[in-house]
């Protein structure tokens, strides 16, 4: 673990909170640590997560976003979700499971060549809405779909 040693030798990081985390083995390349939206991923509510991510929780409902998800998820540990949108000037797509302990599941920073399409599998703790929030040209739009969960998938 050469990065750990180097960090301790530098001394500057070692005394800080990051240094403690690094020393404790929660080693993360600094670039990723800076870019990962920690506050958003620690928010306990959809509104707080959106505020942390986008500066606002105001999102207009949009028919140009499709949330494809099962009506009933047999296994909450693996719920297939597909978000597609025809909205232009795509900056980001965020996926929220409203009743999860951490509602924000994932957020995607879209480059100029990315199409409005994300397909993935998420964990859901209980029946809740799955919401997609799209940042199009700096404005937020959302669509949601309720997914019933028979066996929760968040752990334990």
């Amino acid at each position, binding site marked *: 673990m050469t990065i750990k040693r180097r960090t301790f030798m530098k001394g500057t990081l070692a005394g800080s909170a990051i240094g403690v985390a690094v020393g404790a083995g929660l080693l993360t*390349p600094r670039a990723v640590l800076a*870019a990962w939206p920690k506050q958003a*991923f620690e928010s306990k509510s959809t509104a707080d997560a959106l505020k942390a991510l986008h500066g606002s929780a105001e999102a207009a409902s949009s028919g140009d976003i499709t949330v494809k998800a099962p009506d009933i998820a047999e296994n909450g540990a693996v719920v297939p979700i*597909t978000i597609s949108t025809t909205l232009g000037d795509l900056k980001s797509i965020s996926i929220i499971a409203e009743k999860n302990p951490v509602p924000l599941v994932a957020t995607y920073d879209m480059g100029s060549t*990315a*199409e409005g399409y*994300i397909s993935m599998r998420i*964990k859901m703790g209980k029946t809740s809405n799955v919401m997609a929030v799209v940042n199009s040209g700096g404005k937020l739009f959302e669509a949601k779909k309720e997914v019933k969960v028979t066996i929760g998938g968040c752990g334990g």
Partner: protein
Amino acid sequence: MAKGIKVRAKEKGGVVTVKALISHPMETGGRKDKKTGKKIPAHFIQEVKVTHKGKDALTAHWSGGVSKNPYLSVKVKDGKKGDTVGIAWVDNKGESDSVEAKVK
């Protein structure tokens, strides 16, 4: 071939559909080991980058709420058969992996 990423990329009408399956435990940090009763520490992918022709197409920021052995499919414009597509990830422990594939 990277140990834990399977990727396929297909082009149709100039749009490349990338499908990736990543091997990773994606532990939230909230699950308890049934035998010891102790919490299993958080161990999940935080960032995934998808590149096309060497440029970032999109960057994903993930939490432990993404399912174990994550599947991800995205679409990228302006693609041709033979282009190179890349997937790279970094997790909260600083572990990482990456792979490249040609668009078919």
